[in-house]
């Protein structure tokens, strides 16, 4: 079986490699057609014709000329080394009576126009930077001519044959282009730095704007090379980098979905994920449900659809945070919009880049659990306390096991047949491994005047730290931008991926066994292999080996996406663009439970196959307008109509009762029972009209944006249309006259915005009652299956939009020549008509109903700061940081006040945490409180003396409290956990529950620096959360002092005894606590050093020798440091990340990895 899987993996690998080679081949083809090769010619006194032929040959350009004309040419001396076409031509034409034009791969030679009667002069000068230091390599060009030179190392230039009335242009990257009329000595010319940050283009949805002209709260991120190469998906890349964007992992497995919440959750249901728009194509939600083929209690790790986009292809990420920015996306804007723009080619010769890196990962934190010796002592202690014979015996360094109670003979130290010798096993070492991953990518980009291209291919082989898990993915991307005519622009993007994901975590978080998944088994199993004699029931049958050998979760996914847009310039003021885009994803997920796992044992092998076909396409028609209407008033705007169509179909087949198990996920044909479920269809459409106007007064001093969108959604029956207006104003205070005196201020912009956005991310058909044949069946008297049709949900035809109204006030600033820049925003969002799954009485036959009920408020502050602390030519130090605080509060839930534990609340309870383990729901959604507050029992250490738990009864006598909540614990004993009788009625029961914690952080933050010295760069990123609590549900197993589960060493060492009273761990054999108490609520504040990178750019003389372009090597450490008091694997685990009703719970959380990455990036 192992071989077969290996073979399958190899096959996929081979296909991916072939794809990769193909892409590489295509790219080289393309690059050959790119801009000029380097030209090398040395010749004295040759004819111009001959010289041009050589240039033509080397550059690949066609050079046209009239041969009778060319005879007039003077002989030329040329000395070209690695010159480009323009430089070569300039040398040839220096002093010739000709001029030339370059157009679309052809050079046309013409006689100089006779009407140019101007005298030709020689111009010289020196170019310096803002500090007066000479600038090397500034292009000095005659305007509307190709004639140009570069400045030398002292900043000087000489340009000959300059018409005396010419205008000279001085351009240099990072500086503002300067124009001066020609004269023979221009003296010293000083160039001014561009305020690059303010001129960066920011994508705002259906258009772009300059960063300096933004009116809404938008944060941008341009991933660095190493960031692109070392992250597996774009959402993880955002972690800690942008104020107010909270990225959390549901599980740390490769390929698992990541939850991104912007400015607090607006909705009390699951899907609070932002809208992702990749190259203008809106994507399916990352929080979309991926139903399990198995029973409802099975939890299937959600997969991250964004993995199909290689982060190396990302040019920029723009995060639209406030409603004035997102309202243009209307119904999908409420949770924020993340616009991802992929790399485009730039005019010039082909730039080829190859990168490769390899990662070594290992488990970041292990739990310290009992070894076999302590475990045996722990078990024996329980038996002694319970008055039953012990099973474990010690002889020398041997630990011997005699299974009591199975009728086996009693332990006899001299008869080896009466015992098994146990071998200590650290299951965490068995389950987790040191993983080695690799990542390779190749890209080529370039272009001519009218056409640019970007092509890339990448391949990743990510191994997970859980043995057997991993993600292999091959991606490609091609972008072509072309000016078809003067008026018509084409933009074509195509991308795709093939991936195979093997997840080993497994599913059954809620199932009534302690063996729900690999993590649980690695932690809870006895620290040795149980002798077969002792295997009395299926709960003991499962071991870590079962998960490694008997569980498979293999998904293959093929994704193809493309978008085509045509933009037609109608006039100087008007343009029209039409854009078509689509994403098509086929995914085939097969999960297999063999017979040593509970779900497999329950049905004699259990195979579930889900074939998912998702596609969505979008059509946009935009009419744009852009005009300086009066000298002080500029207006641009768009009017548009769009249509988005999302289709999803999931076909689920389950197979069970196998005779032969060896084919695992491929063995459907071997199942004796095959069930085909009703396919899960979820199609929906959104039709929209939108408009936006940008008003620009006094050259951008006063800016206003007004937008409006009307969305029609197929998901609603009665109230299909939603209307989403927004207004934002900005005032560039720095441009006011009174600010001139504050010369240190480079930017000071005040923004204020208001807008309304919606949310419609409910399942389609929520307003229609229909029947499925999946939920039940019946039989005739011969035992033949009869198909049965059931109504599966209570439909609510009155559903309408969830609406979020938000206000934002922001200030952007930059001081001291932009050395310090940043922004501060305050916001308030009110969400009304919350779409929520209301728990309804089970007497309805259904337990929930989707309703528009209640309202929620999020408000907060965000600060982002960035400083160029040192900015010299050799040393640069940039420090940046962000911090955000969000306060969420439920304003109403549509429920009358009722008794919840010790409080009277208008509230509803969250989802159950774990059927057989925790009886209660952990979260509560109560008016006046943050969403998802932990609700349960307070405890107060250990009962040292029964007098500690007395109360005064109604008749005035002192009585001992009773506990009705712990199994068998009606009368607590000394050494038991002491509960707080909150209402003082003498009995600790459900009426004593109260607020015991908050899963929402007080604030989130991130900071980092980048220090470069010459060719070295070192950078570090930190992020963290403060004032956040998590429910460490794992304590159910690991903090017990009863049962057969393994426990933490620290718990074992601190068990209460009459001698050891200064402890919070109860006595041995104290009943398991199955209610939610403050004992499982932990402070999960943390600070993580997520990234530490050293990179080094190889010296030019070295790379030149190897004929390479810019080449750098780097070494990155990920997750090397974590500061937290949290005792689980990782404080960020959120086991039910996409389930709004269960928040901040770590249930069998998968361990995070720490990694070391070594990579190289070569320019070719």
């Amino acid at each position, binding site marked *: 079986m192992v071989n077969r899987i290996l073979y399958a993996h190899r096959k996929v690998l081979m296909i991916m490699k072939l794809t990769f080679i193909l892409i590489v081949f295509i790219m080289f083809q393309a690059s050959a057609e790119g801009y000029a090769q380097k030209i090398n010619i040395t010749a004295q006194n040759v004819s111009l014709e001959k010289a041009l032929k050589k240039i033509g040959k080397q550059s690949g350009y066609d050079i046209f000329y009239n041969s009778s004309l060319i005879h007039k040419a003077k002989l030329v001396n040329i000395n070209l080394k690695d010159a480009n076409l323009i430089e070569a031509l300039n040398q040839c034409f220096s002093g010739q009576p000709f001029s030339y034009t370059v157009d679309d791969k052809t050079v046309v030679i013409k006689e100089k126009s006779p009407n140019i009667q101007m005298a030709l002069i020689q111009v010289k000068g020196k170019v310096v930077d803002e500090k007066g230091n000479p600038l090397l390599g500034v292009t000095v060009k005659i305007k509307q001519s190709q004639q140009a030179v570069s400045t030398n190392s002292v900043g000087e230039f000489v340009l000959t044959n300059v018409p005396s009335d010419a205008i000279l242009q001085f351009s240099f990257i990072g500086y503002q282009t300067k124009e001066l009329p020609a004269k023979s000595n221009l003296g010293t010319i000083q160039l001014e730095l561009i305020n690059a940050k303010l001129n960066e283009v920011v994508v705002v949805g259906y258009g772009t704007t300059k960063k300096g002209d933004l009116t809404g709260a938008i944060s941008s991120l341009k991933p660095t090379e190493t960031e692109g190469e070392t992250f597996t998906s774009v959402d993880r890349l955002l972690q800690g980098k942008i104020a107010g964007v909270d990225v959390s992992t549901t599980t740390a497995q490769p390929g698992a979905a990541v939850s991104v919440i912007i400015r607090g959750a607006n909705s009390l249901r699951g899907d609070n994920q932002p809208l992702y728009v990749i190259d203008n194509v809106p994507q399916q939600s990352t929080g979309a449900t991926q139903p399990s083929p198995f029973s409802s209690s099975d939890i299937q790790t959600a997969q991250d659809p964004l993995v199909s986009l290689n982060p190396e292809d990302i040019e920029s990420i723009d995060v639209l945070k406030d409603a004035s920015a997102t309202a243009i996306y209307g119904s999908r804007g409420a949770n924020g919009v993340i616009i991802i723009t992929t790399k485009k080619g730039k005019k010039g010769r082909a730039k080829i880049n190859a990168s490769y890196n390899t990662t070594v990962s290992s488990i970041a934190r292990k739990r310290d659990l009992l070894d076999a010796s302590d475990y045996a002592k722990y078990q024996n202690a329980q038996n002694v306390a319970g008055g039953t014979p012990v099973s474990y015996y010690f002889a020398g360094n041997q630990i011997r096991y005699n299974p009591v109670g199975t009728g086996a003979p009693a332990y006899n130290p001299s008869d080896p047949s009466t015992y098994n010798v146990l071998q200590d096993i650290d299951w965490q070492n068995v389950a987790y491994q040191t993983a080695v991953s690799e990542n390779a990518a190749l890209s080529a980009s370039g272009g001519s005047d009218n056409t640019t291209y970007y092509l890339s291919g990448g391949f990743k082989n990510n191994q997970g730290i859980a043995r057997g898990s991993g993600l292999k993915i091959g991606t490609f991307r091609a972008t072509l931008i072309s000016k078809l005519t003067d008026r018509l622009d084409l933009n074509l993007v195509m991308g795709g991926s093939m991936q195979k994901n093997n997840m080993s975590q497994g599913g059954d978080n809620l199932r009534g066994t302690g063996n729900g998944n690999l993590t649980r088994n690695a932690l809870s199993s006895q620290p040795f292999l149980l002798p077969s004699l002792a295997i*009395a*029931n299926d709960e003991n049958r499962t071991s870590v080996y079962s998960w490694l050998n008997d569980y498979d979760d293999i998904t293959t996914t093929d994704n193809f996406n493309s978008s085509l847009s045509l933009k037609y310039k109608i006039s100087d003021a008007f343009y029209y663009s039409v854009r078509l885009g689509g994403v098509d994803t086929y995914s085939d997920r097969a999960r297999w439970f063999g017979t040593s796992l509970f779900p497999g044992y329950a049905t004699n092998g259990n195979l579930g196959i889900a074939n998912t076909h998702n596609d969505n396409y979008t059509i946009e028609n935009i009419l744009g307008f852009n005009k300086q209407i009066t000298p002080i008033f500029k207006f641009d705007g768009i009017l548009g109509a769009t249509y988005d169509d999302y289709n999803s179909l999931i076909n689920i087949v389950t197979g069970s*009762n196998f005779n032969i198990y060896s084919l695992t996920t491929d063995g459907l044909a071997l199942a004796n029972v095959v069930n085909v479920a009703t396919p899960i269809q979820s199609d929906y459409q959104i039709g929209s009209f939108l408009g936006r106007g940008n008003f620009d007064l006094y050259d951008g001093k006063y800016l206003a944006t007004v937008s409006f969108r009307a969305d029609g959604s197929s998901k609603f029956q009665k109230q299909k249309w939603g209307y989403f207006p927004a207004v934002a104003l900005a005032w560039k205070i720095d441009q006011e006259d009174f600010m001139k005196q504050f010369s240190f201020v480079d930017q000071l912009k005040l923004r204020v915005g208001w807008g309304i956005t919606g949310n419609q991310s409910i399942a389609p058909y929520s307003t229609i009652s229909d029947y499925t044949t999946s939920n039940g*069946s019946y039989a005739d008297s011969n035992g*033949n299956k009869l198909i049965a049709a059931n109504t599966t949900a209570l439909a609510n035809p009155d559903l309408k939009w969830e609406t979020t109204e938000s206000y934002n006030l922001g200030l952007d600033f930059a001081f001291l020549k932009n050395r310090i820049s940043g922004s501060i925003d305050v916001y308030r969002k009110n969400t009304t008509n919350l779409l929520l799954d209301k728990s309804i009485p089970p*007497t309805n036959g259904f337990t929930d109903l989707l309703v528009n009920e209640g309202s929620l408020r999020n408000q907060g502050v965000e600060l982002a700061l960035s400083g160029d602390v040192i900015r010299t030519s050799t040393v640069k130090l940039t420090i940046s940081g962000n911090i955000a605080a969000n306060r969420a509060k439920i304003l109403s839930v549509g429920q009358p006040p*009722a008794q919840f534990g010790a409080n009277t609340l208008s509230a509803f309870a969250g989802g159950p945490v774990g059927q057989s383990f925790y009886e209660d729901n952990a979260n509560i959604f109560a008016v006046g409180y943050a969403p998802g507050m932990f609700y349960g029992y307070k405890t107060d250490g250990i009962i040292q003396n029964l007098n500690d738990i007395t109360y005064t009864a109604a008749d005035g006598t002192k009585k001992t409290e009773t506990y009705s909540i712990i*199994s068998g614990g009606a009368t607590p004993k000394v050494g038991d956990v002491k509960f707080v009788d909150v209402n003082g009625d003498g009995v600790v029961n459900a009426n004593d529950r109260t607020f015991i914690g908050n899963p929402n952080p007080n604030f989130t933050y991130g900071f980092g620096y980048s220090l470069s010295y010459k060719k070295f760069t070192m950078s570090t990123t930190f992020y963290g959360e403060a004032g956040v609590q998590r429910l460490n549900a794992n304590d159910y197993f690991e903090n017990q002092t009863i049962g057969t589960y393994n426990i933490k060493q620290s718990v074992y060492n601190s068990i209460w005894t009459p001698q050891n009273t200064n402890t919070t761990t109860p006595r041995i054999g104290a009943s398991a606590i199955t209610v939610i108490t403050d004992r499982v609520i932990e402070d999960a504040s943390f600070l993580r050093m997520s990234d530490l990178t050293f990179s080094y750019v190889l010296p030019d003389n070295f790379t030149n020798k190897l004929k390479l372009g810019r080449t750098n090597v780097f070494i990155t450490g990920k997750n090397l440091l974590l500061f937290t008091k949290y005792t689980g694997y990782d404080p960020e685990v959120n086991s039910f990340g996409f389930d709004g009703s269960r928040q901040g719970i770590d249930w069998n959380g998968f361990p995070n990895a720490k990694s070391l990455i070594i990579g190289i990036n070569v320019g070719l």
Partner: protein
Amino acid sequence: MLGFKNIVMKKILLSLLIIGSCVNFSCKNALLENPVYTLNQQTLFTDAASAQLALNGCYAYLSAQGVYGQALFMVSEMGSGIGWMKKTGDELSSLNIIASGGQGSVVQLWDGLYQTIAQCNIFIDAAGKSSLSNKTNLIAQATFIRALCYYNLAFIYGGVPLKIAPPTPATTDVPKSTKQQVINQVVADLLVAEAGLNATESDSSVPSKIAADAMLAKVYFLVASGEGAGSASWAIAKTYGTKVFEALGGTVPLESNYAELFDVNNRTSKESIFKLNYSALGLNQDFNKGSWSFSPVSSTLKGTNFDNKGSSRAFYSYFKTQHPGDPRIAATFFQVNYPNAATGATINVYPTVTTYIQNAYPFFKKYYDPNQVGQISNKTYYVYRYADFLLLMADVENELGNTSTAVTYVNQVLTRARNSVTPAAAQPANVVSTIDQADLRQFIFDERLFELSEEGHSFMEARRRGTAWLSQITTRNNAQADAIAGFATSNNWTEYLLPTLTIGNITKAMLMPIPPSELNTNTALKASDQNPGY
């Protein structure tokens, strides 16, 4: 010229924009939902065959895990006082003294019963509006199923919210009705069923008029049992019972061999009044979990089995003492020992194993299925069978003063039991016709527990005559020499010491609690609506 061209272009493009948009979605259909892989009420109720699918849905819920597939017999047997369950979370066998009712089978049963009721309500409503020619019979079947659900609710949970119309978003919260109101609804539904059902059915998995009348007799018998000797309901029970006798022509069909009733291949027993069919091919939730729930470890080759649920030692011992050598004991219990299905090795159980370790109990056998795969068994489940009917009619006749008729009924059941083996066993010996009314009352009380144990009736049987009779069971249990206070130790395998007759304890034991999930969400319920003691 240029200006003109621009204006024309603008117009062209504006119209393109509008046309483009219209092509995209102007037609209203573009924003209409059209699920094509599911059925809806319009398509489902146009012909009898597809309406049958929806009716199968009602049966499916009734037979699923939430009701007869598992939860009902779990609550009924483990919570009766005669069952034993390993000390874990859901200690039903503590006679719900420590069971908080927040989880487990008590909740599962509540949810399962109401899910079935909802499907029936939707079906009855939709079928009623349809023009199907056989709708009266279809509705009668669904009404019978609903009656069964409310019958279980009334006698396990007491007064509950009554839902008799399809659920709507506006009517989610319904107040608690009294137990009497719920019983009235059961009777009303059974009368509707009786009117619409066929006189007989070829297979008793479809209810007939006989099934409806027999159920009516049982409901009044339970009501009368609770009210005691002078209750008017005894006579009403007799009225409906008489209808059953008449429909059967005076002879009540019993399977000749008690053990064969529970043979996995016996799918069409004549003794069945109403049964549920199971298929091993169903696999959603609709399989019989009886074998999985109760059969002991390694008793099946391909099944999963546990040692954590069985009969209490006291009940088993009492049965053996009352009827030594009764063939029903071997058919009801795994006792002494049984073979490991895989290895053939002997696994000892009670009374061979007596110390409180695993296997220290006799295990239930009636739903044992040697062919069990994983949790799945397709054994037929008897909701109601004629031996049950005979014994209850015996009680009815005894209370009405017709002791000799009562003895005849009882002896039919006992005779069948003795003749289940060859040669016939000596026990259970017939009841003498001279028995007095009180002794016969006691005898029938015990006999119903013996005859029907594990079949999902024990909870009601143990409580039908009130706390005094229930305390017989607890007293017997606590009289076990080795019964210890189970809660007090960390040994999970001990017998529970059941509560003795104190008002607080035993009253709580009479009814299962309304689950917190209902109390917390149903705004029409008050905290005081919870059953006493919880």
